């Protein structure tokens, strides 16, 4: 196997006494799509900034493309495409101009940048928006423009910090489609998200991060196998009755999770569990059998739901 693109070992970032990242280790191979999954404040963005060579680590080892970001910041950044959590497109410039000025930062000739700008506008499905003002774009369009901008230097590694947060489902799917193409072309992706479905869609491998440390690591399927079950049965008995009913469900499924608004039964076969429960005379107001997801993994690992 070829050398990893990113190697982080015991990476720490402290702000004063507070450790935003508290000893994280991971490696990303060329062409791999690697995810950092975790709730707000987990330290995802801080990790991304260190990998992006814009923030100095407090302790630990970090190399990107075989280089130490403390010494070779510009060299590393010349090979990265960065999509920050908050868009920082220049709103004083037009859409296409944003690509033109950004391409120059990599020391690329104007002519080449102009060609790439047109290709990337097409890739981002913004061909007819080249002269538009940035502020006139929708959230999804801005995000696509930021991704286009991140590709202007033909990067080896693309860093995406919550690429689809705040987008409506349709915009999100368009974006996933674009990212999927990049992945197929062999671009290494490092992305953070707090959406489980996004991680399942885009990541070959991921780490679950909480409070600056890694809780688990693996492929989405492996994590689900290890920390959850094949299916999940969700039942609502009414918020005042959930706890009461839960007491009578002993022995049902592999495991139970009692949340304020619902009860989750982890099992190989959700339908079969539901039959046993109704057979015992318990009738949920609503019930739903679904595939187990990373959300369940997260819940299992931290006892908390991922999204707020």
């Amino acid at each position: 196997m070829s050398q990893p693109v990113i190697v982080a070992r015991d990476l720490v970032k402290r702000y004063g006494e507070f450790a935003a990242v508290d000893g994280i280790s991971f490696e990303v191979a060329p062409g791999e799509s690697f995810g950092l999954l975790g709730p707000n404040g987990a330290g995802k963005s801080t990790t991304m900034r260190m990998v992006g060579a814009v923030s100095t680590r407090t302790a630990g080892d970090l190399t990107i493309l075989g280089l130490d970001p403390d010494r070779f910041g510009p060299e590393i950044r010349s090979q990265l495409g960065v999509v920050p959590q908050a868009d920082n497109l220049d709103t004083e410039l037009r859409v296409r101009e944003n690509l033109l000025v950004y391409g120059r930062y990599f020391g690329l000739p104007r002519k080449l940048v102009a060609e790439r700008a047109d290709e990337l506008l097409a890739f981002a499905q913004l061909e007819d928006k080249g002269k538009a003002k940035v502020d006139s774009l929708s959230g999804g369009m801005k995000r696509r423009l930021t991704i286009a901008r991140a590709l202007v230097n033909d990067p080896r590694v693309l860093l995406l910090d919550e690429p689809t947060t705040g987008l409506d489902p349709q915009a999100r799917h368009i974006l996933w489609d674009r990212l999927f193409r990049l992945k197929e072309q062999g671009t290494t992706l490092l992305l953070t998200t707090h959406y489980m479905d996004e991680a399942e869609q885009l990541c070959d491998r991921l780490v679950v991060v909480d409070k600056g440390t890694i809780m688990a690591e693996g492929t989405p399927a492996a994590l689900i196998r290890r920390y959850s079950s094949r299916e999940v049965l969700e039942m609502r008995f009414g918020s005042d009755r959930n706890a009461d009913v839960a007491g009578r469900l002993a022995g049902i499924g592999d495991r139970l999770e009692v949340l304020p608004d619902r009860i989750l039964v982890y099992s190989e076969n959700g339908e079969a569990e539901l039959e046993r429960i109704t057979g015992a005379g318990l009738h949920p107001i609503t019930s739903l059998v679904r595939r187990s997801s990373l959300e369940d993994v997260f819940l299992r690992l931290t006892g908390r739901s991922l999204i707020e």
Partner: protein
Amino acid sequence: MSEVRRSRSAAEGDAYRDPSAMDAASDVTRAALAAGRNPRRWGAWYVAEHRFRVMRSYTGTVVVAGIGSPLLYLYALGVGLATIVDGSVGAEPVGGVSYLVFVAPALLASAAVTVAGEEFTYPIMLGYKWNPTFSGMHAAPIRPQQVADGVILSVAVRMLVNAVLFFALMLVFGAVPAATGFLAIASAVLTGLAFGAVLMAYTSTLEEDTGQLAMVMRFVVLPMTLFSGTFFPLTVFPIWLQPIGWISPLWHGTELARVFTYGYPEPIWLTVVHVAYLVAMFAVGWVWARRIAVRRLRK
């Protein structure tokens, strides 16, 4: 801790000259090292290019301010007010020249300070905070110091264009008797940058604008004109008020411009002091602005 950080950032600057870095490097590493070369060398210029493009979006303002306001001032003060001043008090109080000749170089210097006031306040807040394009540059291969350098470079160019236009109008009005007059263009840019670099550094320290910038405009930029010998010589003030002028970059810049445009009589050492003061102020502001850029961008 800060020791460590300083040595790290010093190391980043030297990275290129370290031959061991190239040893045993894989292809990707070598590609990265090669691709870093242009940005390391020209990064500040790329930032300036970006700023020029932004300035182009307000070319109208730049040109109107660049030509319109000198026209207005030269005419109103140099021709209008001059008829009263020259007629009533004669040429003696302003050093033996007409009021127009006296006031024009001062207006040239103060125009550069006005540009500094525009370019080193809100655009800096924008770049760091409101529309953080500076973070975007830093996420590309640009170093924080180059962000500061590039912004200063772009504003220097705008000041130069502004001063050249202004100077041309001074020639039209017959306000430049001395052959050394064109040097006043350089002194005006230096004056604008001396004040501007310090202003930029100060603005860079602001996390939030809760009225500080308006205060700077009202209580620093505006009064500076009054105490810098712009409209009347500093010597009309009692001696204990004159130090306000001595610390004002605009006073030094104004006196310097007068030396160039009409040979205003002052000892040579004082001319040297004007230049030294402005250069020193610029250097302090520049170094400070770069430091803050590192602190804010590389967090």
